[in-house]
């Protein structure tokens, strides 16, 4: 039975697509047959991050409209086995996603895949609602700042009231918090919300904290999800998050400012003195 996981946030630019790419890659690297669907019709990005934009022939909307089969539209990831991408259409708008069409595609994918990752568009409108409607689990991507936390709270409310599980009164959608762009130094200086504050406000289980890292931007631009680079903090943090998503225990890392900064300052201080 495939697990349908939506990656959503309400607010834009917090790292939904980056997280979708790394988490789906991580799941596939750990041997799960995984497909990631770009629900951001009209603002297609996932294929760029996954470095497959030149191989897109058919897209999600083509499949919904019966203009292509699922196998024609699915793009096999070149870097990772077990990973497939279903790209969004760039020339249509989100109204092209019908509930019946999405359901049919998901049902067909569920026959062969272990995990179906839905990369939601920003906002709370039709596109985002379609992305979360069929979800079994949800990863709420949040930045440690108030407007992002507020929007995440809003999308959690929609998950509780407008998802298929809510409408059919099934077990509620399992919610995970993924805090991205976290900077422990700035938290210590009081410039950023601490992970505890966000957890307290949103009151959902913490899946992981991804530290702010230059590697994330570099990897996005080069089309290699950051989880591939296990030398970086962000890559390691995504790997932990994927392990937790699969139900394993991992201690949280990268929550405190690194101590070496202290010695650096000492050294710097004595050098300038």
């Amino acid at each position, binding site marked *: 039975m495939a697990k349908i996981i939506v990656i959503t946030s309400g607010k834009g630019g917090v790292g939904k697509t980056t997280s979708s790419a790394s988490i789906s890659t991580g799941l596939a690297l750990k041997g799960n047959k995984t497909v990631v669907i770009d629900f951001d019709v009209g603002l297609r990005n996932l294929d760029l991050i996954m470095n497959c934009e030149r191989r897109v022939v058919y897209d999600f909307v083509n499949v919904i409209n019966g203009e292509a089969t699922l196998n024609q539209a699915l793009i096999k990831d070149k870097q990772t086995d077990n990973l497939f991408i279903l790209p969004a259409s760039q020339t249509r708008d989100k109204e092209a996603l019908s509930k019946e069409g999405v359901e049919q595609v998901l049902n067909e994918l569920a026959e062969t895949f272990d995990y179906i990752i839905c990369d939601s568009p920003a906002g*709370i409108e039709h596109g985002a609602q379609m992305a979360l409607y069929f979800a079994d689990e949800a990863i709420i991507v949040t930045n440690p700042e108030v407007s992002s936390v*507020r*929007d995440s*709270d*809003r999308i*959690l*409310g*929609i998950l*509780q*009231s407008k998802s298929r599980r809510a409408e059919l009164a099934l077990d*509620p959608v399992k919610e995970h918090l993924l805090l991205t762009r976290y900077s422990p130094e700035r938290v210590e200086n009081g410039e950023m919300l601490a992970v505890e504050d966000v957890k*307290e*406000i949103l*009151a959902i289980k913490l899946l992981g904290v991804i530290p702010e890292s230059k590697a994330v931007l570099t990897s996005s631009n080069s089309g290699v999800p950051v989880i591939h680079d296990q030398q970086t903090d962000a890559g390691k943090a995504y790997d932990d998050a994927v392990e937790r998503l699969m139900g394993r225990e991992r201690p949280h890392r990268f929550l405190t400012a690194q101590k070496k900064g202290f010695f650096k300052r000492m050294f710097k201080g004595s050098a300038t003195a």
Partner: protein
Amino acid sequence: MSSSLTAEPSAEHEQTNTDTMQDSFDFERNEQHPENGGQMNEPSQEQEQVNMSVAPHSGRPCMQLKGALVPMTVLELNYFELEQFTRDIKAKTSQAPDFFDNLPIVIGLEKFEENGSLPFKQLIEACQEQSIRVVAVRGGSELLQSAAKQAGLGLLPKQKERQTVETAETASPELPEPSENTQAAQQQETPTVQTQVETVEIIKKVIQKEKQISKVVHQPVRSGQQVYAPDGDLIVLASVSAGAEILADGNIHVYGSLRGRALAGVKGDTQARIFCHSMAAELVSIAGQYKISEDIDRSVLGKPTQVYLDKDALRFKEIDL
């Protein structure tokens, strides 16, 4: 009861209040002694309101009208014969003179004999001799009511059908349903026992009522969500996020942080309160009186707090745990 005069604009409010009162206090001991003349009930819980608080003269309006529940004693009259009435009422007052001193009383006419005449002047005087003040009549024929009006008494509508009260044997709390009882059984009871029975009965009814109408929310109330508990209390066993709105006709309890908007007594119940485990509300309102976040008493922010209406001002009070 007389028309509910309140400062609230909502007609529904009056209705709600009235219903609650009648449902909660809809009982009466059946203490009839048919061979007796006008016999007197022990103080029975009756509803009445007419409470005008007069403000000290400081430019403020010199009065305001408020609805209130006041316990009243009802003198239920079966028939009227001056001599016997005087004898009976003397016998009653002699049992507890302090209680009857200057006691306002309502004359209940529901059981008054049909086509019987009632000289209100005599009745009022007979009562006054025992220092009892007759303030109103309840029920009775149109004829009697107009006579009461001429005698300067207030008019209350007829009490709804009541149920008889259970006997002492059935009054223990584990036997919840009141049963119909014979008068013979009731005549054996002492007033003390009956008073206890009544108290149990009231408490039980109030509890039952709350059970029916309270709304319990187990999930956090998220930004953009709205939860309304019509006719009763709202209980949230989680936090209420900023941007969420919770409303109740009755009280609001939040066993988490209250960061959103909370509006209690939305149909005008000025007795409604808001309780929360941690106060960080964007707005709180009781019966239309509201305060926004920046006007909330700083000392209670982040603390267990109750909010209530004191005259027309919202008060915030930390709950000492």
